[in-house]
C-alpha cells in the first residue's frame, strides 16, 4: 500500500474544486436551513441550474463567460420563485416535499432526449469552459505541489474557487450579523412571533431561498468547469444528501461549518477509500473487491449522516445550547 500516494490524494482532496463545489452548495444550504429553517431537499437542482445555465449559454448562445455566469444565476433565481411562491406560505414539510420532487423532475428533464440538442441529453455537455479558461494568467504546464501535480487549468479553477468561497463567506458573515440576519433567525423559530413584530415573513423567506440557491448555483458552475464536463447523472439525490451531510458535519447554522465540514468530509472519504483499496489489494479484506470499495463510500455517508443527527446534531462548530434549549 502506497501511503504516500494515499496521503497525497487525501491532501489534494482538501482543496480540490470538487470539494469547493460542495462547500458552496453547503453554504447555500446553510442559508436555507441553518439560518432560516427552510427544509430544502433539492439543493442539487439549484447547482444543476447553475451548471446548465452556464454551459448552455456558452455552447448554444456563445456568450462571454460572465454572461454565462449571470444566466446560471438567473436560472436559479427563477427556480427559487417557482418553488417559493406556492410553498413558502405553507408548513415547512411542504417545501421539503416540493423540493425533492422538483429536483427529480429537473434532473429527468435535463437527461431527456427531447431537449438533447440544448442540454446534451444523457450524454451531457462539454467544451463550454473555453471562455473561462481564456482568462487564465497561469502559464501552460504542470506544477508539482509535493502531494500532487496539477495543470495550469486545475490551478486556476482551484484559486478562483477558493476566492469565491472567501467572498461568499464574507458576504454571509455580513448578512448574518446584520439586522436582516436577526429577523431570519427569528423566522427559523417562530414565524408568528416575527409577524407580530412587524416583519414580512414571506418576503424574507423568499430572499433566503434565492440567496441560498444562487450560492449553490455558483457551486454547480465550479463543479462542471473543473473537469470541463457536465454530466446530468451528477445532479441526483446523492448529490443533495452529500451536501446535507457536509452541512450537518460542520454545523448547520455556521459559516465555518460547511467549509471545514466539506474539507474534512471529502478528505476522510478519500483516505478511507485509499486505505480500503490498499487493504483489498493486499488481501486483508477478502470479502471485498476494488470496485465495491467505491460503493461503500455511499454506505459510509449514510451511516455518518445518521450518527451525526443522533449524537451530534450541532456538528463541529454548531452551538450546543441552541439544540438543547427546548429541554423543558
Amino acid at each position: 500500500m502506497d501511503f504516500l500516494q494515499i496521503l497525497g490524494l487525501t491532501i489534494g482532496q482538501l482543496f480540490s474544486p470538487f470539494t469547493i463545489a460542495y462547500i458552496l452548495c453547503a453554504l447555500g444550504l446553510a442559508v436555507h436551513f441553518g439560518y432560516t429553517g427552510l427544509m430544502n431537499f433539492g439543493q442539487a437542482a439549484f447547482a444543476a441550474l447553475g451548471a446548465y445555465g452556464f454551459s448552455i449559454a456558452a455552447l448554444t448562445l456563445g456568450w462571454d463567460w460572465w454572461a454565462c455566469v449571470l444566466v446560471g444565476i438567473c436560472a436559479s433565481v427563477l427556480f427559487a420563485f417557482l418553488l417559493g411562491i406556492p410553498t413558502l406560505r405553507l408548513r415547512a414539510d411542504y417545501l421539503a416535499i416540493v423540493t425533492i420532487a422538483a429536483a427529480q423532475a429537473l434532473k429527468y428533464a435535463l437527461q431527456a432526449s427531447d431537449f438533447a440538442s440544448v442540454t446534451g441529453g444523457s450524454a451531457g455537455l462539454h467544451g463550454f469552459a473555453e471562455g473561462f479558461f481564456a482568462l487564465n494568467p497561469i502559464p501552460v504546464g504542470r506544477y508539482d505541489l509535493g502531494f500532487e501535480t496539477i495543470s495550469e487549468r486545475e490551478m486556476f479553477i482551484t484559486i478562483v474557487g477558493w476566492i469565491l468561497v472567501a467572498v461568499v463567506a464574507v458576504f454571509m458573515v455580513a448578512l448574518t450579523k446584520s439586522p436582516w440576519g436577526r429577523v431570519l433567525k427569528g423566522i427559523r423559530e417562530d414565524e408568528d412571533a416575527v409577524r407580530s413584530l412587524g416583519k414580512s415573513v414571506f418576503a424574507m423567506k423568499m430572499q433566503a431561498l434565492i440567496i441560498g440557491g444562487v450560492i449553490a448555483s455558483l457551486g454547480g458552475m465550479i463543479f462542471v468547469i473543473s473537469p470541463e464536463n457536465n454530466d446530468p447523472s451528477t445532479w441526483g439525490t446523492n448529490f443533495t444528501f452529500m451536501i446535507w451531510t457536509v452541512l450537518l458535519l460542520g454545523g448547520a447554522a455556521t459559516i465555518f461549518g460547511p467549509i471545514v465540514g466539506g474539507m474534512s468530509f471529502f478528505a476522510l472519504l478519500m483516505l478511507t477509500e485509499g486505505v480500503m483499496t490498499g487493504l483489498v489489494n493486499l488481501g486483508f479484506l477478502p470479502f471485498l473487491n476494488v470496485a465495491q470499495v467505491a460503493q461503500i463510500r455511499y454506505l459510509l455517508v449514510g451511516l455518518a449522516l445518521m450518527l451525526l443527527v443522533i449524537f451530534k446534531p450541532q456538528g463541529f462548530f454548531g452551538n450546543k445550547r441552541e439544540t438543547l434549549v427546548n429541554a423543558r
Partner: protein
Amino acid sequence: MRDEIALGAIAPGCAKVDPILVVDNVTRKFGGLTAVDVAHVEIPRGRITALIGPNGAGKTTFFNLLTGFDKPDTGKWVFDGKDLAGVAPHKVARLGMVRTFQLTKSLNLMTVIENMKLGALGQRGEGFWAALVRPIWKSQENAITAKADELLKRFKLDAKREDYAGELSGGQRKLLEMARALMSDPRLVMLDEPMAGVNPALTQSLLEHIKQLKNNGASVLFVEHDMHMVRNISDWVIVMAEGKIVAEGPPAVVMKDQAVIDAYLGAHADTDLGTVEIKSIKADK
C-alpha cells in the same frame, strides 16, 4: 377625577368619547361553533381596558382577528381611522397595534437582547441590500440597543441579557415578550394574559409599567383572569361570554353585576377559601 369614557349611557357595545379602535359586526365560526360574534365595541383611547370572561369566551380569537392573525367571516374594524380588515399581521403591527400571545412566543434560540432588538421597527438593516452596507444601519442599531437595555432594566431582565430566552423561566419569558412588544412604541398594546405565570410580587411592578404606557399616551387592551389586577389598573372593563360582549363599564360597576359574578367571578371572590365549609366525605380506606 376621571373623565367620561362612554358617550352616553353605559351598555354593551356603547360608543366612546374618543375611541382608538371601533369594531363592527365581527364574526368567526369554526365549523358549527360561533367563536366570536361581536356586534359593536369601541376601545377608548389613552385608557387601560380589561377584557375578561370565561375560558372559551372568544377573547384570544378576538385578538387574533383584530391583529390579522386570523380571518373573520364578517366584520370591519377601524384603528385610528385606518380600516384594518384584511390587513396582514405584520402590517398591523407596523401601524401601531401590537399584541402578545397567550402561550408566550419568546424566541428561545435567540438571546434576550436579540429578542429585544428584533422588536424595533424601521431598522433599515432589515432590508436585504441595506444589510450588506454596515454604515447604513449601524447608528440605528446602537440606538435600538440602548433602548432595549433600558427596557430590560425596567423589567428587571438586564442580568439575563446574554442568556438564551429558552433558559429563562416561564414568567421571565412573559416579561420578555411584553418588553419586546414595547420596543416599537405601539399606540395600542394588546396583552393576552400578561400576568399568567408571573410571580405576584413582580406583578405589582409590571402594573406600574402598564400604567406608564398610559402616561406615555398609549392605549392598552389586556385579557386577564386576575381580578385584583383588573380592579387595580383598568379604567374600563369589557366582559365577553360565548363570543359576545355581555357587559362593559367601569370596573367597580361591572364586577358587581350579578350575571358577571355568576358566570365568571364566583361568589367567593373576596372570601378566604380556607374558611369555606367543605362537605364531609367518608374516606373509604
